[in-house]
């Protein structure tokens, strides 16, 4: 059974995380000498989900246990460990999501395995894994390599790989035994808290004007609001602003906030951290205003204005009124 790539599926409320399909695509594009790619679905009552995933050109293993009904780091580390030990894969692929960065490093620490996280692309070459990453606020690209005779735990950044599509027919679904020592599951699930729906719903807006740290002061939000009003939009924000409570959490665009696809997205003074871009990159037209021409927001924007947003917006408002 040794070799190959083990992909860990992620799911919540009976739905597969989109990142899981990206992992399958990343795994199948690698040159794997033996035994190919296997996707493992951990959970309780997830057989149906596993059958569905077998449609994505990958063999599926189902590992069911009552203690896996809700994710906890302790139970998952034990369960994944069992399968890694019995299958001894070359790579264990996990999404770089909140669940992934809870699980992957803890698994690697507990099993004394190498780990590389938040990778954009990976390549298995003669005896080594080469991974491409972005560092220093996305401003530097780095390739790193790991050589090991042990399984390497890798997390891939969501959105970095196009997702795997379904193929013709379905692949095998095999149930695999899981043993979990309940005494060693020290982390207990208590409850899930869902955001209260109040305020405006960003995800249904056609035009969003988002403010970032570049607006410098809370008072300057008025300027952004005025501009949004002039173009029929609503105001969103990057994470630092909702952390500062300048705007409610419901206005946050990004991985930990809302994912939006408006017709127009204007990023005002937002540098474009990965967590923000994940939430807005699919907007129809993206305009960005930032003083730093190397800011990563300009990579996803269609048109970029290299300017101080506090100077440009008043001038634009004047233009719009004059017109």
């Amino acid at each position, binding site marked *: 059974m040794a070799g190959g790539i083990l992909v860990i599926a992620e799911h*919540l409320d009976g739905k597969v995380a989109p990142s899981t399909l990206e992992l399958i695509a990343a795994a199948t594009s690698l040159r794997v000498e033996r035994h190919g790619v296997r996707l493992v679905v951990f959970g309780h009552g997830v057989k149906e989900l596993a059958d569905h995933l077998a449609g994505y050109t990958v063999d599926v293993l189902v590992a069911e246990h009552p203690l896996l009904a809700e994710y906890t780091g302790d139970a998952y580390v034990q369960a994944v460990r069992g399968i890694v030990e019995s299958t001894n894969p070359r790579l264990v692929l996990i999404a770089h999501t909140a669940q992934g960065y*809870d699980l992957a490093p803890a698994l*690697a620490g507990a099993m004394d395995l190498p780990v590389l996280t938040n990778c954009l692309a990976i390549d298995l070459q003669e005896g080594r894994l080469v991974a491409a990453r972005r560092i220093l606020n996305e401003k530097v690209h780095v390739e790193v390599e790991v050589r090991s005779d042990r399984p390497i735990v890798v997390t891939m950044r969501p959105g970095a790989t196009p997702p795997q599509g379904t193929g013709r027919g379905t692949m095998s679904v095999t149930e695999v035994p899981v043993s979990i020592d309940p005494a060693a599951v020290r982390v*207990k699930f208590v409850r899930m808290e869902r955001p209260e729906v109040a305020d405006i719903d960003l995800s249904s807006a056609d035009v969003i004007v988002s403010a970032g740290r570049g607006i410098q002061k809370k008072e300057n939000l008025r300027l952004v609001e005025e501009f949004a009003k002039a173009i029929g939009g609503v105001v969103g924000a990057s994470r630092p602003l909702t952390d500062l409570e300048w705007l409610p959490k419901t206005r946050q665009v990004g991985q930990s906030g809302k994912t939006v696809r408006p017709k127009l997205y204007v990023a005002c003074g937002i540098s474009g951290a990965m967590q923000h871009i994940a939430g807005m990159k699919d907007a129809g037209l993206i305009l960005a205003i930032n003083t730093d021409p190397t800011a990563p927001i300009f990579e996803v924007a269609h048109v970029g204005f290299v300017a101080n947003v506090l100077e440009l917006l008043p001038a634009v408002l004047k233009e719009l009124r004059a017109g």
Partner: protein
Amino acid sequence: MENLEISSASPAPAVALNLVVCLKQVPNPDLQFQVAPDGKDIKREGLNYKVNGADEYALEEAVRLKEKHGGRVVVLTLGPKRTEPMLREALAKGADEAVRVAYDDPAAFDVGKNARILAAAIRTLPHDLVLTGVQSDDYAYSATGGLVAGLLGLPHASVVTRVAVHDGDLEVACELEGGLERVVALPRPALLTIQFGANTPRYAPLPAIMKAARQPIKEIGPAALGLPGWDAIPLPYAFGVVRLSPPVAKGHAELITGPIPEQAKKLAQLLREKGFVRR
């Protein structure tokens, strides 16, 4: 130092906590970076360094837990001498003791090695709760906390936004995608990675800054951890940096530069052309 001995000898409150906070010093991420000629690191001359953003929230959470439940906060870093001002700032903000693991690699790209050294250092410190930031602003691995937990066999929770301490255990809220939060309970000792915005970090008062300037910083070398040198730390792999390079953008905006009035005209024109201007 005398004060500390007296307080530890006096009866402790019901849940006095030994808190260890891992701090990382990072180059200010708002800077521009250039790749060093050998392609193995960024050019580090003239960079200014600061405490990692998420770690500030981890420190604040620890100091608040100490204020509420009693206990001590030890801040721990891995890095060269330049990290000392960061440790002093943490002392001024309420940490009781600062420890620097004298691992002087200015780049320290290998998160697995860093975490193994940190874990070895934490083993030498009393710890009911270890706190780290969720992610570093420089390398963005989000792996140090989880690795340390795994290596030390501690239960852990990640992306934590709220911490409540009960008699026997902790209840914490972990942020997931899309605004969901998963609340979990876990026993102590434990490790938590703290999310940005979990609290409002305090400013250090001036007298505390003056006092911190005179406080000793404990230094841990490899010998203190039973190692002949840092390279003797056992690793199940070989790690290498292949090369650093400026990012190749997948796409790029058409960039408008020049005087503000001209940029404003272009932006207004674009908004009109695309039909976004309300009349």
